[in-house]
């Protein structure tokens, strides 16, 4: 499913009308673009108004039963041990906003203004570590660079790939959506194409069908990139035919 099609799922998602598998896939797409998340938020709030409109009078016994039961039920620990819950910290939206904005800009540039989700970060992912944040900052720097250029193309099986290159930052970012999972024990490895010789640019997350990857290493003179299927852990040089080759956009 294309990212533009995914965008239309905001309504079905807010109504809880997606089958489980599609719901999970959609949630993986949410999170990078705050504008997209915002639409889901508004439509969910709208759906809740439909709920509010069918209010009923609960029978008296329910109150007693609920209050009796909660006395015996342990509460969950807060998801973050930081001060986020107190309402002081800006929370996820704030933490992601600069990256989200950059991702939106890049996506808009790549798809002619159609807002898309490009990131594997599910809305409720809680494990953002410092390392991930630093990577995101680097990602954001590339995506928001004044000389960032994008090119995109169809990959195998209807998947879509977009590459963003900033010559001034000398880095490149690859965004994939709807990629088939690699076969068990295999990973997708990314390569810089230096005039036909392939230089490793890192691995994609094998569990994600949508992923945003900062390519390892400088762009330098590379004219494009490729993707191959390699054994887990990656290879020194490609051992299989590329599943995709993409030219970098002209500077």
């Amino acid at each position: 499913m294309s990212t533009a099609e995914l965008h239309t799922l905001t309504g079905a998602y807010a109504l809880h009308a997606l089958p489980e598998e599609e719901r999970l896939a959609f949630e993986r797409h949410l999170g990078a673009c705050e504008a997209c998340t915002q639409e889901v938020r508004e439509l969910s709030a709208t759906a809740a108004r439909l709920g509010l409109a069918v209010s009923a009078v609960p029978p008296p016994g329910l109150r007693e039963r609920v209050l009796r039961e909660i006395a015996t039920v342990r509460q969950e620990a807060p998801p973050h041990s930081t001060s986020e819950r107190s309402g002081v910290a800006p929370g996820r939206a704030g933490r992601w906003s600069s990256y989200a904005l950059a991702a939106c800009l890049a996506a808009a540039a790549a798809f002619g203004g159609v807002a898309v989700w490009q990131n594997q970060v599910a809305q409720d992912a809680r494990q953002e570590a410092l390392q991930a944040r630093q990577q995101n900052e680097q990602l954001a720097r590339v995506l928001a660079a004044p000389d960032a250029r994008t090119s995109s193309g169809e990959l195998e099986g209807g998947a879509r790939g977009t590459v963003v290159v900033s010559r001034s930052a000398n880095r490149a970012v690859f965004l994939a959506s709807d990629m088939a999972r690699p076969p068990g024990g295999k990973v997708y490895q990314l390569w810089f194409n230096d005039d036909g010789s392939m230089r490793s640019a890192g691995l994609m997350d094998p569990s994600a069908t949508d992923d945003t990857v900062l390519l390892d290493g400088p762009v330098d003179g590379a004219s494009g990139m490729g993707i191959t299927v390699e054994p887990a852990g990656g290879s020194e040089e490609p051992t299989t035919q590329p599943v995709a080759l993409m030219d970098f956009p002209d500077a």
Partner: protein
Amino acid sequence: MREAVHISRAPAPGPGLQELLVQVARGDQDAFTQVYDQVSGPVLGLVRSVLRDPAQSEEVAQEVLVEVWRTAPRYQPSRGSAMNWVLTLAHHRAVDRVRSAEAAAAREHRAALLDRTPDFDEVSEQVESRLEREQVRRCLRTLSELQRESVTLAYYRGLTYREVGELLSVPLGTIKTRMRDGLIRLRDCLGVSA
């Protein structure tokens, strides 16, 4: 039939609920009692609209309310109102129950679903919910028929977009789009912001 209409403020997801939920997250049972009084009506009404069966609805409503207690620390005010959070939880629980029951029953009752168009009047009345209901009903009327059916069959009946598509004999892509633009129109009519 004419009824006295009480002019009261808009329904009660008042400022208090959010603060109460924050207190509940810290283990405050008295605060939970107040949360219960504000949300139990909407929770039960919503669950009942999806499940219909009164006994099962009460059982699921109880589960939802206990889950509000248990997971209150997860609630993040920055992501939306407390009532929205509770009703989303309730809707998910109700729909999950429908889907698991349907899987077990081979979805035999599906054919009967079309007869059950949303019927607001069978729901017991609370004065404060009347204005809300009038407004929602008025705004639902501004939707096209397909938008309205797509939205209400999914929300009030717990159907997936595929089931809605089959039921209405409309292509799936159209259903997805109608759900979205229907909700957008509803959002604008109700003046929802988030």
